């Protein structure tokens, strides 16, 4: 077991790689009642085309990773939620572009709950009947999102940016695509992506690290996993240019919703370089568009934005993009105003004081995040899956320079790379 200390954060992380390849991390939090554990696989909605070692090239229907997540909760003995409930744990799971995460929180019977978490995810049980039944439930989940304008406008930007890369495919798939899923599809994906060497267990809370790791050691020793070759994720080439400049969706909304963003031209490998680039862009967006900037205030005073205005930057394997916007009476005027301000800022650059203030804010936000076991577990796994370390972010923030941020402003806001998504009521339509 390795001990990794972070004295400046007053945190210590314990780590061990199991013989079968499973990564186990434990972060004891003194004085905390609850324990939060996540068991994650590097497998999400974008992993729809792959092969293992010299195996067969496999392509699967959209929405399989998410479907699999739903079906994992069913065991021959019944629903695993009931087992967790017996042990006082509340369990859940989610699927994103590049990972599937199973989790629980509990204040008692921690050992039993960790065993349950690991065992149910390592014990698939799919039948023709239970796969069919799930289609009705996921169908309603898809319909729920279809009626949700915030989801539609958000996904709309990604659909506008990417034509080929599977990041543009809705995580849940479509009612048609899930219709073609069978138990065989699920087993194929399960056997590929749920091998321990593709997974990470993170436990945070009022626990003893050595006890947790010993428990996992014993648990894994009882299971027989062969070695698995490298998983090759196949991505067809995505053009640099955006797929659509503008995507308009009609749904009843009180004001148009407009999100727009920039598709990064510069695709980096996962790792330290990508992490730094991402942090620089996030900092840059905050200095440009944050709620303490003159631009934000001007847009607010002009009633072009409201409290929900926001921005983010996302990246993963073979994709990276920003998303900016919110509710606005005039999407085109909003974009024009931001464009003017960005272009003016490109020539002058940011000033040192604004840069320092934004950096301070980011550091504060990072430290506040460390109060939340849930956030730590989710972010830690997220960073690990990108070959980075959550606890090494502080020095990166501290080393970022004003020049770097100014350069990222000039590079990222490339108007050729702009894609716009609008959700408006049928009556508001003029596009």
């Amino acid at each position, binding site marked *: 077991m390795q001990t990794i200390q972070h004295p400046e954060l007053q945190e210590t992380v314990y780590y061990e790689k199991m013989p079968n390849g499973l990564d186990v991390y434990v972060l004891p939090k003194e004085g905390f009642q609850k324990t939060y554990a996540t068991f994650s696989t590097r497998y999400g909605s974008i992993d729809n085309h792959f092969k293992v070692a010299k195996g067969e090239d496999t392509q699967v229907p959209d929405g399989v990773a998410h479907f699999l997540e739903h079906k994992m909760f069913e065991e021959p003995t019944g629903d695993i939620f009931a087992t967790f409930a017996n042990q006082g744990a509340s369990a859940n799971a989610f699927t994103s572009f590049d990972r599937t995460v199973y989790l629980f*929180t509990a204040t008692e019977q921690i050992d039993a709950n960790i065993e349950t978490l690991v065992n149910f995810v390592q014990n698939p049980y799919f039948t023709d009947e239970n796969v069919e039944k799930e289609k009705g439930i996921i169908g309603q989940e898809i319909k729920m999102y279809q009626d949700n304008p915030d989801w539609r406008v958000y996904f709309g930007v990604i659909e506008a940016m990417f034509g080929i890369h599977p990041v543009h495919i809705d995580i849940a798939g479509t009612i048609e695509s899930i219709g073609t899923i069978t138990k065989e599809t699920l087993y194929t994906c399960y056997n590929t992506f749920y091998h321990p060497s593709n997974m990470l267990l993170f436990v945070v809370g009022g626990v003893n690290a050595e006890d947790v790791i010993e428990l996992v050691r014993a648990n894994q020793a009882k299971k027989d996993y062969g070695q698995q070759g490298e998983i090759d994720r196949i991505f067809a080439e995505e053009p640099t240019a955006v797929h659509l400049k503008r995507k308009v969706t009609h749904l009843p909304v009180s004001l148009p919703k407009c999100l727009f963003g920039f598709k990064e031209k510069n695709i980096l490998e996962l790792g330290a370089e990508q992490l730094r680039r991402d942090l620089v862009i996030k900092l840059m967006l905050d200095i440009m568009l944050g709620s303490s900037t003159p631009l934000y205030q001007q847009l607010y005073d002009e009633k072009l934005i409201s409290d929900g205005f926001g921005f983010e930057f996302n990246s993963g394997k073979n994709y990276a993009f920003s998303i900016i916007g919110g509710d606005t009476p005039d999407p085109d005027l909003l974009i024009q105003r931001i464009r003017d301000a960005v272009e003016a800022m490109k020539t002058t650059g940011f000033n040192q004081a604004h840069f320092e203030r934004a950096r301070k804010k980011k550091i504060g936000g990072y430290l506040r995040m460390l109060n*939340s076991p849930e956030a730590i577990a989710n972010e830690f796994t997220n960073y690990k899956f990108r070959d980075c370390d959550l606890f090494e972010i502080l020095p990166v923030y501290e080393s970022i320079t004003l020049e770097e941020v100014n350069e990222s402003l000039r590079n990222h806001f490339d108007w050729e790379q702009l894609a716009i998504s609008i959700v408006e009521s049928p009556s508001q339509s003029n596009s």
Partner: protein
Amino acid sequence: MTMTSFEQGQVHQMRIHVMPTKRFKTFAIALYIGVPLEESTVTEVALTPFALRRGTETYPETIQFRERLDDLYGAGFGFDVLKRGDYQIVQFRMDIINDAFVASEQSLLQQSFAFLGEVLTKPALKQNKYRDKYVDAEKETLRKRLDSIVNDKIRYAAERCIEEMCKNEPYRLHPLGKREDIEGITSESLVKHYEKWLQSANMDLYVVGDTSLEEVQKLVEQSFQLQRSKEVNYELKAPTRQSRDVQTIVEKLDVGQGKLNMGLRTSITYGDDQYAAALMYNGILGGYPHSKLFVNVREKASLAYYASSRFDGHKGICTIQSGIEIENYEKAVEIIRQQLDSMKTGTISDLELTQTKAMISNHVRELGDSAFEMIGYDFNRQLSGKNRPASQLLEQIENVTIADIQAAAQTFELDTIYYLRDRKGE
């Protein structure tokens, strides 16, 4: 149970609650300001925090105000307008890094109190130069917020169900007020209302972090320019007893999925001895993925993705929500009614009982890991006048029997069925 309790004091008729602890990397501050929910003031109360967050005497321009927060290491600052029972409560929150983690010259806690004190008692709103500008802009923001409720159909259906159910009570009002009142509010009327609100509202200030009651009391004296003469207390009314036939409301909008909501009334509220049994009732009915609604509506009948219930212990209302295929309305209502019946007949397995106890107890114990959750829990005591420490609630939950839940179930009466569906057949 290591959940320490709050030390209590009072300054300017503001109740102060402090929990000294080194467990967190931050100081959490919450200020609750509550007045009875009333048709004539609901909109002005709602607008007030919006206007206050625009600037203070020292930081009159909103940019200065926000920059100040960034300088405090990105201090979290936010507010909410809540409805708790028949009270409308404005909650301000701050969340600041403990100085131990950063190189700060002055105490961040002291600076944060200076800031919050100004927000409440020395707002730029009182200066003529800013008054109209800020009030106009925030009226617009509030209007947009109210308009946007319809965008999220899950939330919209929940609000509409309550509105229909409580047609004749203040509880029908949305905590953000009434759209039609906004126009008539002027900056003069808002300032006048604000002054009165400062005088007459209940105020509870909470701090969780590495500090003491003495320090907080001193900071409040320095930072809050309040002159409040009389003590105010929350007085929650007993739930209204109404025996009537179930009303069914159907509303049509452009939706792909139907939203089925139901409202039940109970005489049991937070202060009641039966409160733990009512929590168990809700937990077994629809609080969790092992509950009757999830298992029967979703897992067995495959009708929905979500099907759950919620209990508002301050009002004595339990609500049920689900999203279904439009034509499955009758089927879903029937299944849900069967679950309500089985609660009344006490058709509850030992497994359901122990699972639900374990889940609720787990939730109560977890409160201790979050500063704001602990604050929220303790605020229930201020609101209801009932002191029920978390350890006591855990004990009461443990002792609830199936017979107790069945007895509690007799008090839950279905009142309203609200269905939001598509426009077909119009």
